[in-house]
């Protein structure tokens, strides 16, 4: 069997694109949605502290707002760590898809190395 670099390159490109795209879609959907939630939440903290200052029976105190702001910072770290993990999962998927497609397509010829 004759193997050309172009054949292998095409197989690798197709496999990587398909597998990485799925994983990357998860990252690119998740991260903006979570950042949007953060923006809405920070606005809510400002609004509730403002309500409390007008009427202490409504909203919550500035001290509560401060703790909630710290919690939002923690949530931000959670999202960023998750994004890193999701990216690694996408890379792993792509690498394994490449290995599989090479094995399937050129298994016999590459038996010595794969």
């Amino acid at each position, binding site marked *: 069997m004759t193997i050309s670099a172009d054949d292998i390159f095409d197989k690798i490109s197709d496999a990587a694109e398909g597998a990485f795209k799925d994983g990357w879609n998860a990252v690119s959907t998740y991260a903006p949605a979570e950042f949007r939630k953060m923006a809405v939440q920070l606005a809510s903290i400002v609004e509730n502290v403002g309500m409390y200052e007008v009427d202490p029976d409504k909203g919550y105190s500035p001290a509560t707002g401060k703790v909630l702001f710290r919690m939002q910072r923690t949530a931000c770290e959670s999202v*960023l760590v998750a994004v890193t993990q999701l990216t*690694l999962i996408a890379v792993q998927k792509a690498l394994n898809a490449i290995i599989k497609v090479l094995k399937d397509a050129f298994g016999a010829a590459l038996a010595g190395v794969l």
Partner: protein
Amino acid sequence: MKRYALLFSILMALSGCGTVRLVSDYDEVIDKGIIEFAEQLGAHVKNMSELGGKPEGTYDATLKTYNGLDAKLDVLIDRASAASEGKACKIEAKIHQKIAAALKNQIPAELPQGADATTATSAACNARLLVLVKDQLQSIRELHRDVDKCGPARTISCLRPATARDAMVITHQSINAVSIVEMAKKSK
């Protein structure tokens, strides 16, 4: 010629293992455990917001529930930490720089950067995600015990409805981060 040499080296690199593992395996105990925790915490905080100002809604009256939730998280953190083999969760360098800039270089020390990702560092990131959920639980405790006050003289510890609502939305982001990573691992 260079192209063939590069191709050969890629094949040689890939041939070292049957499949590549950069992240730890899906863990059903963590996946189900965090869902149970979310349900229990959500119910507790909702109850507290409705009982604000009443004796049943004080921090002291619900201390045991907090301890139970804390213990549940500790079990999950221990499980994820055991798989990390003492390694630290490492964030990809570019993302780390962006976080550092956003937080004005007050980035948590537990979050070092590095490109040497292994399944152990990935497990450490799982543990870190769970520790962040525990931090959120501690903050809700703090709000309930020390910060929010109800009653005519505002002397009774409570969770005000607006506090409870916002605290849960934020905490769900940290809980969701654990769940989404486990779900992605499950389908990998």
